[in-house]
């Protein structure tokens, strides 16, 4: 593949790279560059336009990006960096093979690709029980995502992402919604999409859509921001006739709770909040999680130095390129969290939870970074008042 490839020229034009002013705001804010990695979004844009012979630099840069979207947030010219990186990765993967160092030796991508088999008979609902009410068919589904798999794979760092799913269903049951949980649901394909494996991503989209249709689903509720992004934004690109309403659990909770009649038990903790990139920057949902946190009485809340749309990445995306620089981003992020003097770090994405928990457990930091990390959904499910004489579900 040469850089005068018309497809690359097309991406440069469509994603507004010609609008680049070379102001350098992107590189000045890029967490990967600030952690010392030889990577610069500004230089990438410059080389693409002005020095098309620097092929190896461009290829390496395309795989180095965290796709956290902070550069795009800062860009005054509206260059669509993320989308450009995604298209370039897909193109490079198709012509030169998948690159980018796969964390955990690519185990996660392996199981995602295994899920593209149409004959797969998953046994993924073993975590149900605990009095959780779910339906076999109906108009509303809850998308569980990779949580059952994460909990097995990451059992070594003791993350419990399935509790997020259980607590989500508890909250839905509390609001008298009995969601469908599909046994044949597959991974949403987020990591395959962002690492350039478009073919398998599309296969997963089609298989998931078939399952939704078979169960008569009209609305899908998701709690993971990555699933939300894929189901809401990228799946309709693959399946244009898709007529599914995709709802983020936090939006639904805010809507229902603001109707009144629901209270929260006080929680005497001091909390801070890690904005997931897919939620805060890409879905623009900064205010809703904070509004939900504020509903809990007696809980102190302090923002980190960089928060909201300016939040720093948890260090890794799509399970590629986890290295010493990712670690540095994570350590700095956790130091920001520690600086708020909080004892509870709330996040809204299972991946943030996994990556930050991993960094906290660094033995050389002697526990100086460790603090309790919980998903917003779990915090709400623990504090919500199960009044009206109802027994708390699952207790």
């Amino acid at each position, binding site marked *: 593949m040469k850089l005068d490839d018309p497809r690359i020229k097309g991406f440069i034009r469509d994603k507004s790279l010609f609008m680049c002013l070379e102001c350098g705001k992107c590189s000045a804010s890029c967490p990967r560059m600030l952690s010392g990695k030889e990577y610069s979004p500004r230089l990438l844009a410059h080389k693409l336009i002005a020095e098309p012979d620097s092929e190896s630099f461009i290829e390496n840069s395309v795989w180095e990006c965290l796709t956290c979207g902070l550069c795009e947030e800062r860009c005054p010219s509206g260059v669509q960096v993320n989308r450009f990186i995604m298209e370039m990765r897909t193109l490079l993967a198709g012509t030169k093979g998948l690159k980018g160092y796969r964390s955990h030796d690519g*185990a996660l991508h392996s199981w995602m690709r295994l899920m*593209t*088999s149409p004959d797969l008979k998953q046994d993924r609902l073993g975590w149900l029980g605990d009095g959780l009410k779910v339906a076999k068919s109906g108009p509303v589904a809850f998308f569980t995502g990779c949580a059952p798999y994460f909990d097995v794979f990451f059992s070594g760092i003791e993350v419990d992402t399935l509790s997020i799913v259980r607590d989500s269903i508890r909250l839905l049951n509390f609001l008298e919604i009995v969601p469908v949980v599909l046994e044949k649901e597959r991974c949403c394909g987020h990591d395959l999409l962002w690492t350039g494996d478009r073919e398998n991503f599309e296969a997963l989209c089609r298989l998931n859509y078939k399952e939704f249709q078979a169960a008569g689903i009209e609305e899908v509720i998701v709690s993971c921001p990555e699933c939300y992004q894929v189901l809401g934004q990228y799946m309709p690109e693959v399946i244009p006739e898709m007529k599914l309403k995709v709802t983020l659990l936090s939006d639904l909770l805010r809507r229902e709770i603001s109707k009144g009649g629901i209270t929260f038990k006080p929680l005497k903790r001091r909390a801070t909040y890690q904005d997931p990139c897919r939620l805060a920057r890409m879905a623009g949902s900064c205010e809703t999680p904070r509004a939900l946190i504020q509903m809990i009485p007696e809980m102190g809340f302090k923002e980190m130095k960089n928060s909201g749309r300016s939040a720093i990445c948890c260090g890794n995306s799509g399970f590629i390129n986890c290295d010493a620089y990712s670690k540095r981003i994570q350590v700095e992020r956790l130091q920001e969290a520690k600086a708020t003097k909080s004892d509870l770090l709330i996040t809204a994405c299972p991946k943030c939870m996994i990556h930050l928990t991993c960094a906290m457990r660094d033995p050389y930091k002697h526990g100086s970074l460790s603090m309790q990390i919980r998903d917003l959904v779990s915090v709400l499910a623990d504090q919500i008042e199960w009044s009206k004489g109802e027994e708390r579900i699952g207790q």
Partner: protein
Amino acid sequence: MVQTQLLGIFCNWSPFACFNSAAMAHLKMPSNFGFIRVMCIGRINQALILRAFEHGADGVILLECKDEDCRYGPGPEVGHSNVAKARKLLHLLGIGQSRLVEQSFGAHEKSELVKALWDFSEQIQAMGPNPAKPGQERGIQREA
């Protein structure tokens, strides 16, 4: 009936010594195996096991040293923990735990090793091909 494709991963020490002496003794071995030799079964992680299935294996058997025989120390223990986790993932995926097996051998157990290979081959042949093969692998099989 479709011939199943199996992968045997040998530790270089006791199991491979068994394999060598079995071959020297002209013991008959199943023909549907691909073999890989690694320096220690502790080298094998969950990703490599899953990748074998991703590339179309119907079963994977890890052939390792006895715990106390490991030349490096924790090899077989690492193997046990990886196999335990990978089996849980295979269970979730519906591929089934029994398609991944580990077995340990002393350096003199050549007939036991050959028997283990035959038993595994028969067991997987009875189960039939792995239903969860990704698109690319099914494509290759159709062309073949």
